[in-house]
């Protein structure tokens, strides 16, 4: 089985079954949110990303934005409850960054995490890879 680092997944990244990831930094209690390499590949060439404004609050599972590729438009779901502290505005001009480097330059949100316990229920990198390998075509 493939390892998390083979896909460039940073250590400690957690995943939703809807393919959003969250990378939580315990010291700062701030987290980065984006979509996985698998989601980016499935969507194909991404042409548009619509993101929320700084200061907006979301509950776990809420729709926080929309992503559009040449194939489809999909909602983006919040991995945990939190408040937006920064948004990657570069994606408005260069949405292809999500295809190229979803875990680094292609991040979408920076959030403060309100309920860190919610992270425990998410998949870790290895678990996520197993999950998508089952679904893969």
């Amino acid at each position: 089985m493939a390892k998390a680092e083979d896909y460039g997944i940073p250590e400690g990244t957690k995943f939703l079954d809807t393919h959003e990831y969250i990378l939580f930094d315990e010291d700062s209690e701030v987290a980065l949110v984006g979509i996985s390499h698998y989601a980016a590949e499935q969507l194909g060439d991404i042409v548009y990303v619509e993101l929320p404004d700084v200061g907006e609050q979301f509950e776990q599972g809420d729709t926080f934005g929309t992503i559009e590729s040449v194939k489809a438009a999909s909602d983006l779901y919040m991995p945990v409850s939190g408040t937006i502290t920064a948004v990657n505005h570069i994606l408005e001009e260069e949405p292809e960054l999500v295809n190229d480097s979803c875990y680094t330059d292609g991040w979408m949100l920076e959030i403060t995490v309100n309920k860190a316990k919610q992270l425990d229920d998410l998949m870790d990198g290895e678990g996520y890879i197993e999950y998508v390998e089952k679904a893969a075509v």
Partner: protein
Amino acid sequence: MSESSTKPALPTVRDAHGNTRSVATLFELSRTGRQGVTLPPLDEGADETALMQSILPEGWQRKRPARLPEVSQLEMIRHYVNLSQLNHSIDNNFYPLGSCSMKYNPKICDWVGNQPAFNLVHPEVPQALAQGTLGALYTLQAYLKDLTGFCAVSLQPAAGAHGELAGMMMIRAYHQRQGNTARTEVLVPDSAHGTNPASAAMCGFDVVEIKSNERGLVDLNALRAALSDRTAAIMLTNPNTVGLFEEDILSITQMVHEAGGLCYYDGANLNAIMGRAKVAHMGFDVMHLNTHKTFATPHGGGGPGSGPVAANEKLEPFLPKPTVEQRPDGTYWLNHDRPDALGQLKLFYGNTEVLLRALAYLVCYGGDGLREVSEKAVLNANYLKARLKETYHEPFTQTCMHEFILTSRHQRADNKDINTMALAKRLMDYGFHPPTVYFPLIIPEIMMIEPTETESKETLDRFVQAMVQIADEAKTQPDLVLDAPHTTPVKRVDEVAAVKQLDLNYFANHAQGAGN
């Protein structure tokens, strides 16, 4: 083409028959002073400025002439005829675009819609002088009631999505009338048409997605978990968008009703069940019909369309007005006296000429004929499915309705670069319109094939042969597939650039070629 020409050569393409066709824009063809129509000069001594002023006040007049192309009549005719020859349509070849029911429009339907007795009736004439048209619309309402099992129909909405919006507005009005303002959620399966969540959201509802089970049907446990006293309605199409009949439909509508919600039927796939099942009998409260998908009125290109709504006793009062009704003396009238109605959604009687085509279709086939239409649509889909399942991966193996889905899983297992899009593009080289691809989103690398009832076995066999050959090419000559299409006027399109670098203004990007 002249070698000595000083202007750059005008763009041409080769059509499927190898003939050269101009694809120059009218602006490229334009030459200063060339005219399509020569107007007589003004009368001797006429004051042009005063004349213009009498037609349009000076403040509203252009300061500079509009930059319109200057071409002769013949050039203009050739321009549009040449472009039309590059189109693919059901009138030139097979068009298996799943979920769209690209069915043949019998020409007699156009003939009926074009009769001067109908199309010369001014919409403002008194109703007494439009009895023929009103009678035809009344008859159509009656046929649609009979076909769907509902008690009332409004022909107002101008398109399928418009009908869907009307239906959801009726549901909202019903709950408001009951004082149920807490019912804010609309349940939509994850395989639904995108218009369903859009219509619900337009009406201010929150959309709750219901997962499909491993057989491609609504998961009853997921449905049960989603139902609550916040549930306003469920929106369903049956057969669903993967071409499968929801076997638990009676349980589904019962569960929603028991929770206090209403059931909306999306008529997109009605072509599969005409004369076999009535939508009202499945437990639905309201639906829209797509006259272009089911009754062969013009399809695509932005309309005009028509999306009548049908409803049961519970929702009938809210139907958009006017409806066409008949007096005891046999005359017809437009009933605007419907106090709970949503109001009027479309000027006059709706898109009358489109509705007349639908009526012509229904009259031509009759009840038995319509059942046969659905049976043949289902038979054709199952024939193709059976012929292709050895070659392509079939996510759901049960008998399908009027359409079915395949994926490129087997082809991708051999060569990861091959995807459904590439196979679809290659199909154009065989003269076929590709099927719907990448919809619904629940199955990766999906293609959805809907042959419709009017295709012969010979056409279906040609399609099978092409699909099998393309699968073989994917294995043995992958570049042939990956670079396809090779024979179309426009080759592989850069879809990312097409979205991100829109080229909509001729003068912004090509001003050099402008005639003026």
